[in-house]
């Protein structure tokens, strides 16, 4: 370093600057890595130390000598593998989406004003925020709904059913009709589980599916797509042929085959669907990356001496990101729907209280207790609708081509 820094470009003596070879990881990547360490550590601890029937946090509390405080704040949970994955993808989401948005307030504001114009999407975003918050906080606040055959088929608040359909009416009974109560705002199902808290727990499942599958699809799709676009030649050809196969894969029937052979579980569902859903994303990312890498600013950057990996990270991926995000947003409903379908067929993981599971459970009682089907059905419908609306608005708000259209 020179003692006094030149302040004009023609005074710079370039020999004094060491020729940097490697590029430092960006700050966000560093923070992301730091923040995954505790999650990984806890996961390892869970895997190696905690017994199969022990709740992780109870054991952790005991090991750390903090059982008291842990109990006090209600930290007695036993996260499963999928929960660790979920937290990991959430961190990905925070460090690579939320923080960059915060760091670029001008751009964020610009996109936000464009996004805001789409009212339904704004509503959709609100609903998604509710689902997200509910899914994240709900399980810590509400207990897993317990079965009680006596309180089965309770009607939702403000409605009533014939007393005969209810084994034991929790609320008031007037004129032979059982009225709903706030104890079960959305009523109960045929085993007496509270529909409202089932839906809240279903939110967790939905969010897990949404975040994990999308992250896996994003990681595989973006890597394959950019590698194919950047390498070209036979690498490109080969990868695109793989994509062809992935795209031709009949995922749902194939999942049924797997399920038939290995049994059902939510992780298996996420795995199979994520592994066979990235084809479209990869193809899309490739075409976007190709068109971006034809842009002159890529050449400009290369000419200034930037390495290929630098260009990919700083120019190609940021410029394809908006299209990728849009595409992924529109992919999420597909996963949610698939899970619900499988659960509805009774082929899902019966331990997982998903919305599809609830719809399936209520189907036989549809004629006299429609809320069991309607409540989760509408929740599912709204969520898918919200994702679709948001995706559509993002398409308009983030697409640079649409931008020129609007500015014209």
């Amino acid at each position, binding site marked *: 370093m020179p003692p006094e820094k030149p302040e004009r470009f023609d005074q710079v003596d370039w020999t004094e600057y060491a020729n940097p070879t490697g590029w430092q990881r960006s700050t966000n990547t560093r923070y992301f890595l730091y923040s995954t360490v505790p999650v990984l550590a806890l996961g390892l601890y869970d895997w190696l130390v905690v017994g199969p029937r022990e709740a992780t946090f109870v054991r952790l509390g005991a090991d750390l000598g903090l059982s008291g405080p842990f109990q006090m704040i209600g930290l007695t949970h036993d996260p499963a593998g999928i929960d660790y994955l979920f937290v990991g993808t959430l961190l990905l989401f925070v460090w690579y989406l939320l923080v960059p948005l915060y760091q670029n307030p001008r751009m964020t504001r610009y996109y936000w004003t464009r996004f805001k114009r789409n009212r*339904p999407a704004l509503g959709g975003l609100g609903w998604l925020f509710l689902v997200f918050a509910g899914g994240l906080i709900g399980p810590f606040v509400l207990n897993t709904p317990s079965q009680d055959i006596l309180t089965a088929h309770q009607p939702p608040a403000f409605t009533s059913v014939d007393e005969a359909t209810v084994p034991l009416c929790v609320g008031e009974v007037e004129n032979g009709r059982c009225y709903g109560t706030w104890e079960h705002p959305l009523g109960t199902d045929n085993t007496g589980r509270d529909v409202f808290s089932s839906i809240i727990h279903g939110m967790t499942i939905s969010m897990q599916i949404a975040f994990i599958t999308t992250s896996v699809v994003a990681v595989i799709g973006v890597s394959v797509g950019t590698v194919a676009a950047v390498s070209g030649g036979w690498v490109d050809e080969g990868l695109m*042929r793989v994509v*062809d*196969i992935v*795209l*031709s*894969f*009949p*995922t*749902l*029937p*194939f999942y*049924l*085959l*797997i*399920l*038939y*052979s*290995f049994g059902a579980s939510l992780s298996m569902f996420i795995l199979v669907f994520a592994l066979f859903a990235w084809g*479209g994303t990869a193809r899309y990312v490739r075409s976007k990356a190709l068109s971006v890498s034809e842009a002159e600013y890529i050449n400009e950057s290369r000419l200034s001496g930037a390495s290929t990996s630098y260009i990919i990270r700083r120019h190609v991926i940021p410029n394809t990101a908006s299209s990728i995000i849009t595409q992924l947003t529109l992919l999420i*409903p*597909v996963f949610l*729907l*698939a899970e*619900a*379908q499988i659960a*509805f*067929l009774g*082929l899902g993981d019966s331990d997982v209280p998903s919305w599809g599971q609830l*719809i399936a459970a209520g*189907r036989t009682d*549809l*004629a006299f207790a*429609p809320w069991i*089907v*309607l409540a989760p*059905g509408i929740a*599912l*419908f709204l969520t*898918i*609708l919200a994702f*679709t*609306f948001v995706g*559509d608005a993002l*398409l308009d708000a983030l697409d640079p081509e649409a931008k020129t*259209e609007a500015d014209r």
Partner: protein
Amino acid sequence: MRYYRYIGTRVLWAFVVAFIIVTITFVLLSMSPDPSIQQAATQAALEGGDPQEATDRQEKLRGLDEPLHVRYIDYMTGIATLEWGWSEYRNQPVTKALWGSLYYTAQYSIPWTILTLLFGPLIGVYSAARMYSWKDHVVTGIAFLGFSIPNFFFAIVLLLVFGVWLDWVPVAYRTDVPVVSLENAIQLALPVFVLVTGSIGGILRVARNESAEFQNADFMKTAKAKGVSPLRAYAYHVMRPTLVPLSTTVVGQLLAMFLGASLLVEVVFGIPGLGRTTFDALVAQDTNLVLGSVLLFTVIGVIGNLIEDIVFTIVDPRISYDDR
């Protein structure tokens, strides 16, 4: 000439894809425990026999004692020669069972596909022409609703309303009515409606977005300056280029719908088609039939993608056959 060679390559490639997917199913099956063997073992144990012996017998019966590559070759030749085994659950050859169910699936799939392909692009282009008017909002709103409402849920609700409460349609599907008859049309109305609402939204949306781009394209100005009427301009100059991007998504969307939603819809409406057969086979643990239907879905998927490729080459004159 180059065109036919291109098509030839694509057909060949479709076979390769099918081959690879079938191989994957084989790997999967050979990795997993066969339910029928376990069943035999349990049966033997319950009946006081030797479970091990029963397992071996069952394995021999199914040819599982052979070395892996022999089994693989047998498997592949069996599939290639359409000898897909015997369905224990249906008590008939798998191919025959599938063929029989395909008959029912086709009855609602064909009208559904035709309706979707006909109305999706039309409404999409119409909606783009009236962009941001209330008509457009209504159309896109309905498209979004149809697209977002889970099909099986929608089917249940519709069946409840029209079947149970209003009693306009039969609740149980009847296989004894003639294909071309009012009864059949009535009982297929709901499934077709559910599927069309589900699939038309996506196609409509692509058609709307793409044609919105084309209706402001430069060549539309040329067409207008030539004195082309708006109707003709939309029918020829907007519709045609819209078909290019549309052709790349339509097949995918219909296939996804076919593989997923039709299964659900068949289960809900009780149509003894492919989806229902697959489901029943799964429940009845009929390996051959499950495998057979997965294979059939694979074949349909591969053919669908092939059609997509070919349609794309037909609609886009700019495609270079050397590039792909």
